């Protein structure tokens, strides 16, 4: 039977309308949401690569470029890796590995001659994490990685890591060992109760799982670890007087944090050579483990604030940092109640341009007990309750914040709100010393004069000792002197500062 032309045209119209309805009504949005691998067109590709991209071979191209990036990693050519990472994430934003590696690479691997990271890149690393978590919302990984940059690399503003770790917790695939980290982040944000509750929650879940599957040794180990963590935390809550504080009877007993200890902070900056400074200072705490954060930055840059920069300021991935900004972060390690560090910025002009944009530069000293090691916190408390400083204790440098989750929409929590916490503010030791551009570059009046700036309480005699900085840690087993040591002279040198009480 021969179909008539009108019949054929009728069928043609019906199939055309049918396929169009299917495509626009049911297929298009679903495909874009679930299968589309690209966020747009990647630029800076060679013509053949662009052609591959156009014909839908995006993942293939991303894979090939990633192979190339690996070889650059092996050669240590980190500068070449950066654009490839960006291209790969544009071509295939579902490759979690590329995001995770890229964030780590951007935040950690661009360093100066003395292995200090170029922190101007950190906002880009965080922006990459934000983009990656938006693109891969079903897995915990990029939420965790972003939180980890806040927790470990920025090591400040812990409410941010809490926010990201909480989002990671909502994903079922999060590794059990990594779930503990949220409790630590809570503690560092002085949300001690929340930290304890998180441990209890994890413990209850793990214990229940272990009851069901006793033959899985890993569950037993997790349960044991959580028991130990809980045990240690509760002991600390008692000994640091935190529970007594909550109850309101802290004044009745002497706790480890009772009577805040005066750390006797002083600081001095000497410009030894152009862009080479020596930072010195005192910190009257004898046990090792204290690191004073030292920051050198433009005084007037609006993106910089007290001992920090606007880390969270980028929402789009821009891999080119503010080239004419100077931001250095280092640490002064306290030994024998002093710190003394030479910082050479002369070898890395791209990282430390000391551009004309700023006429003055700040050398900042920052100590936050929330980031302190546990044995130091045992005396200072979670929020520095056991620490004071006559001259430089500040409670206005870091306000206490927390993110409050908004409405939950399936796996997503929308509309997080940042709010100030009604708790005692963070007790921080902070000061800054100003240097002019001429001083730091040893120009003008400072060609043959050594610029020295110091806090008014700085005692130079504490730095005139010739004895080597040897840390004597007495043990119960042996009190025998070290060969060649002169303990009396060393003690004399250590106690050189008048009016201080060594602990």
């Amino acid at each position, binding site marked *: 039977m*021969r*179909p008539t*032309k009108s019949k*054929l*045209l009728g*069928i*043609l119209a019906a*199939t*055309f309308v*049918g*396929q*169009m309805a*299917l*495509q*626009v009504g*049911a*297929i*298009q949005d*679903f*495909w*874009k949401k*679930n*299968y*589309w*691998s*690209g966020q*747009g*067109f990647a630029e800076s590709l060679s013509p053949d690569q662009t052609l*591959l991209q*156009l*014909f*839908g*071979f995006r*993942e*293939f191209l*991303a*894979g*090939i470029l*990633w*192979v190339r990036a*690996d*070889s650059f990693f092996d050669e240590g050519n980190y500068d070449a890796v950066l654009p490839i990472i960006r291209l790969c994430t544009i071509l*295939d934003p*579902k*490759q*979690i*590995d*590329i995001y995770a*590696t890229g964030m780590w690479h951007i935040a950690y691997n661009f360093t100066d001659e003395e292995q200090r990271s170029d922190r101007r890149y950190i906002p880009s690393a965080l922006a990459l994490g934000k983009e990656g978590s938006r693109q*891969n919302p*079903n*897995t915990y990984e990029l939420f965790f990685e972003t939180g980890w940059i806040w927790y470990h690399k920025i090591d400040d503003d812990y409410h941010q890591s809490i926010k990201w770790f909480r989002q990671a917790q909502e994903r079922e*695939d999060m590794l059990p060992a990594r779930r503990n980290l949220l409790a630590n982040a809570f503690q560092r944000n002085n949300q001690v109760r929340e930290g304890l509750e998180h441990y209890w929650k994890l413990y209850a879940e793990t214990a229940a799982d272990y009851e069901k599957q006793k033959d899985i040794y890993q569950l037993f180990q997790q349960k044991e670890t959580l028991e130990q963590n809980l045990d240690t935390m509760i002991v600390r809550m008692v000994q640091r007087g935190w529970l007594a504080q909550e109850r309101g009877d802290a004044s009745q007993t002497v706790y480890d944090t009772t009577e805040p200890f005066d750390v006797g902070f002083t600081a001095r900056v000497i410009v030894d050579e152009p862009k080479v400074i020596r930072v010195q200072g005192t910190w009257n705490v004898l046990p090792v483990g204290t690191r004073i954060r030292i920051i050198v930055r433009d005084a007037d840059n609006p993106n910089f604030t007290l001992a920090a920069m606007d880390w969270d300021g980028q929402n789009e991935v821009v891999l080119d940092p503010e080239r004419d900004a100077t931001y250095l972060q280092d640490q002064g390690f306290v030994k024998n109640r002093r710190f003394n560090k030479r910082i050479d910025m002369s070898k890395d002009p791209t990282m430390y341009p000391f551009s004309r944009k700023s006429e003055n530069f700040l050398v900042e000293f920052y100590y936050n007990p929330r980031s302190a090691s546990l044995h130091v916190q045992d005396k200072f408390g979670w929020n520095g309750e056991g620490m004071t400083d006559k001259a430089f204790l500040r409670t206005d440098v870091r306000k206490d914040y927390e993110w409050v989750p908004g409405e939950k929409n399936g796996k997503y929590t929308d509309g997080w709100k940042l709010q100030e916490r009604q708790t005692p503010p963070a007790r921080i030791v902070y000061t800054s010393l100003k240097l002019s551009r001429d001083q730091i570059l040893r120009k003008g009046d400072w060609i043959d004069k050594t610029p020295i700036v110091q806090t008014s309480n700085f005692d130079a005699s504490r730095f005139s000792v010739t004895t080597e900085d040897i840390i004597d840690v007495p043990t119960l087993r042996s009190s025998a002197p070290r060969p060649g040591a002169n303990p009396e002279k060393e003690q004399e040198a250590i106690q050189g500062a008048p009016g201080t009480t060594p602990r």
Partner: protein
Amino acid sequence: MRPIMAIATTTVGEAIRRRVLLIILFIGVLLLSIIPSLSVLTARSEQSTMISTMYAVLRGTSALIAIILTIYMIPNEIERRTIYTILSKPVMRWQFLVGKFMGAVLALGLMIVLMSSVMVLLFYIFQQPSPERLLEVARQPFFYFLEMMLLAAVCIFFSTFTTPLVNFFLSIGIWGVGTVLSPLYSSIASNSGASPIMQSVAKFVTGAMPAFSNYDVKNPIINPGQVIENEQKYFIYIVLYAILYSAGLLVAGMVIFDKREV
């Protein structure tokens, strides 16, 4: 139905005997077999790179086979005048067209099955995946088959009124546009600067042109761990889409071919 099946069977036989197709197939298999050696170059994303590269080769080779197989089908019959022998029998023009299309689809299916088997075998040997993962990897070639069926329909439609050379470039162009159509549409639709008219035009074009990108569902296979709800429903839709669109193109081809002087 018998004439259609007879033409389809003959077309499959012709396709298998065509050297140029066999050479493309051989090159495809050869490329597939060297891909496992690529994975050693990338430490972290070994499996992702291997799968995405294999899929790229499979898709590229299949598309080339689909185009070369179909663009010559009708012009060759006309040029060699074998069409007179066929049409002098009780075979209608529409049956001839459908038979040719079905034969091309069957031949394509055979070639895709062959290449997919090599791909799955290599993947199994070099990655030792779980049976579930193996099945997951083997899923995408089926959708490539649907995509190539649609591409074959496009080629056959053009071959009713154009020369093979023009058809070659037209089909490649349509396939290229069809693979980038959704992202393009999406870019225009999400661009707040685009006028409503532009957005409507983009929407219409997306609906009217064959969307080959619908069959590109490999991303969750390459990057496992993504949760997709109602995937089965989507698969049903795209099978229906392929059938409807191919049918539409064949009908349009019939209308044109019916009027053509041969």
